[in-house]
């Protein structure tokens, strides 16, 4: 089998929408928006869409609707008042009766496009300031363990970890002189446990570690707590974080509703 040659990569400016593209076409020729002829803009716009199609690029429907709008505006100029009535389409994003109306809207779009630059600059400056409220604490707990984080383990490491799990399991079983078989049919008071977890979370007002929720640390308690936590997470009452395999599990209150 021969490997397929790399498809060549072409970088095109990404346009946020038809206004963005129109704006670019006008600016490229350094024209004043009010001096541009709709016919010239329409032509360039269509040429651009054509080249996009030749490159097999997906063209979002808005771009096509705009193309139709441009053609309609252009044809209106060529044919004096051909079909005024009954051509409004409620679904149409671009209902312009004249090129002036289109250019007015382009002007308005340009104002916000430029305003977005201000927001970009402010966001960049502000990203250098660390706040407690932006989850700094959560992030810190998570990231402080990042050095050890691994996505995969060698066989030896895996065997070592597995051995460690077995050891802990045995130690637990020995401590409670309990066989490592659990009777799950027995009534496990998961809802009691959920209530307890929620109360503890309320009291702490922040993050709790899984182990801090355990009092006796026997297998039954670990299991019930774990199941209760999974259930709470499923019902979006808590969030669970674990930054690496076998790492400590962190229990956080559910995200506050916005608004």
């Amino acid at each position, binding site marked *: 089998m021969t490997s397929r040659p790399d498809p060549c990569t072409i970088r095109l400016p990404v346009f946020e929408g*038809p206004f963005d593209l129109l704006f670019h076409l006008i600016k490229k020729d350094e024209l004043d928006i009010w001096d541009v002829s709709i016919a010239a803009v329409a032509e360039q716009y269509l040429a651009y869409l054509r080249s996009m199609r030749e490159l097999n690029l997906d063209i979002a429907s808005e771009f096509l609707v705009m193309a139709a709008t441009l053609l309609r505006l252009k044809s209106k100029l060529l044919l004096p008042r051909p079909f005024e009535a009954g051509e409004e389409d409620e679904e149409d994003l671009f209902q312009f009766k004249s090129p002036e109306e289109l250019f007015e809207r382009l002007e308005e779009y340009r104002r916000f496009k430029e305003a977005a630059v201000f927001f970009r600059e402010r966001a960049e400056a502000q990203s250098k300031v*660390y706040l407690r409220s932006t989850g700094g604490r959560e*992030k810190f707990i998570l990231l402080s363990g990042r050095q050890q984080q691994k996505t995969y383990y060698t066989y030896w490491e895996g065997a070592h970890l597995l051995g460690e799990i077995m050891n802990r399991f045995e130690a637990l079983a020995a401590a409670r002189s309990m066989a490592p078989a659990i009777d799950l049919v027995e009534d496990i008071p998961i809802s009691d446990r959920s209530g307890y977890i929620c109360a503890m979370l309320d009291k702490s007002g922040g993050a709790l570690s899984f182990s801090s929720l355990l009092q006796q640390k026997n297998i039954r308690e670990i299991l019930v707590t774990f199941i209760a936590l999974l259930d709470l997470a499923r019902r979006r009452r808590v969030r669970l974080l674990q930054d690496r395999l076998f790492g400590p599990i962190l229990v956080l209150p559910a995200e506050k509703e916005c*608004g």
Partner: protein
Amino acid sequence: MENAKAVIEALLFLAEEPLGLSRIAAGLGLTKEKAQEFIEELQHDFIEQQRGLRILEVAGGYQMGSDPALAPYLEKAVGGEESGQLSNAALETLAIIAYRQPLTRLEIEEIRGVRCEHILDNLIKRKLIRISGRKEGPGRPLIYKTTPDFLVYFGLKDLKELPPLEQ
């Protein structure tokens, strides 16, 4: 009150959101003017003594944050902005909402010429905007507004701090 500055410092340290001047003043039993004087002194002290923290004026209140000059070091220790930067499309949409709020999705789309449902969802998830109600009229469409988190994100005191839209 001789330890007023210390109390304000502690209050700002504890607060996870910007604290309004009136809340700080009430907590200390001071007039707003007096409280503001202390805050300004404290702001000055932090800079003068080359401390790692700054007291910022954002979202109609005061908040403690790290000195921006320390960002390179903090990034190494704590990591950079996890959630990633906002796309141009998201910033454009935010700009429209910031200047024209409250407004409907359709009104935003008319200005941008592109549908922006996903962008709005994303901005809501990031708590930069919120649904503030419905517009009276056919279909009673939802209307959107910026949030206090929006002001914090861009380090703005209030919406009046936005530069006037160029005409």
